[in-house]
């Protein structure tokens, strides 16, 4: 494989090009320095952040000073929103705080599994697009919902692999395959991927990108794990582009069947 990168295989979202197909979340890292090093090691072009009330007892910023907005797109999320109105409120605050008009839309009213509310997510997407946002929605692996979100004008579709933070892997593959088959915007498998092999599996199947946070942030060595995920994503993408040869239930000899040494 050549070392030089083929720029024709960039990830393109809403007209913006990204060389990496790994999106990185910034939650749960042991400290900001490790987070920054993991971002570097991942090679990512998009990092997500959350918006929260300032802690009056500890008001100093411990986050944005460690991020370099000239090197990657900062993508605020609407985590914590329980309905469309709350999501729009968070998105507008994020825009006021940082000037960011790309938003990772998350509406998760249910605390145990943090599954996205499909009705409120679609409603919020419409409101946010109307307000000028570029919307990247976290969503259930539902092909019909995917179609509705794409019709509404979302820039990506981001179906979950498994519930947020569970590291259970790519549990939704059959439905995500349908979403990929139908979508004309990038499909980013978001949430639940726990290992580089999970990321590879999604990319091999034709996902355009993956978003990973917990699996990297809570690893024994988050920087090394960020690098490992980058490799997994790249391997999966290359395999997808190479075109898999399909499977067979019976053995198919890879060595010639004629001219055996035994002579019969």
């Amino acid at each position, binding site marked *: 494989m050549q070392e030089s990168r083929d720029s024709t295989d960039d990830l393109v979202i809403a007209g913006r090009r990204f060389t990496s197909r790994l999106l990185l*979340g*910034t*939650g*749960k*890292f042991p400290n900001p320095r490790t*987070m920054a090093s993991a971002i570097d090691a991942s090679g990512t072009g998009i990092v*997500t*952040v*959350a*918006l*929260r*009330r*300032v802690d*009056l007892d500890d*008001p*100093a*910023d*411990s*986050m*944005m000073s460690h991020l370099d907005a000239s090197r990657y797109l*900062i993508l*605020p*999320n609407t*985590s914590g929103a329980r309905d469309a109105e709350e999501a729009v409120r968070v998105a*507008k*605050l*994020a825009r*006021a*705080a*940082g000037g960011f008009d790309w938003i990772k839309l998350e509406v998760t009213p249910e605390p145990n599994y943090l599954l996205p509310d499909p009705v409120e997510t679609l409603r919020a997407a419409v409101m946010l697009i109307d307000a000028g946002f570029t919307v990247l929605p976290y969503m259930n692996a539902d092909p019909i919902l995917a179609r509705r979100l794409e019709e509404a004008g979302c820039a990506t579709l981001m179906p979950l692999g498994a519930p*947020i*933070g569970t590291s259970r892997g790519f549990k939704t593959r059959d439905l995500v395959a349908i979403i990929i088959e139908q979508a004309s915007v990038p499909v980013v498998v978001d*949430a639940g991927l726990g290992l580089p092999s999970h990321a590879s599996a999604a990319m091999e199947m034709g996902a355009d990108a993956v*978003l990973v*946070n*917990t699996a990297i*942030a809570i690893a024994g060595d988050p920087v090394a794990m960020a690098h490992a995920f980058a490799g997994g994503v790249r391997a999966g993408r290359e395999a997808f582009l190479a075109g898999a040869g399909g499977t067979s239930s019976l053995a198919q000899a890879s060595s010639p069947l004629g001219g055996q040494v035994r002579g019969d």
Partner: protein
Amino acid sequence: MRITLNDEPVEADEGSSISSVLALRGIPLENSAVERNGEIVERDRLGDAVQDGDRIIIVRFVGGG
């Protein structure tokens, strides 16, 4: 006069600006956004005086997925 800052009661002098109330608490304004009574306060209006009973919310970015 009494206002709330992120739901905490705060005494503010008559005529204090929003930015001065935040500065008194040592809250930097970079990369933050302010809501007053549910409405976003644009950066160029942070010099506006707070009114008795105002509910001020200030938010900023933290790590998140």
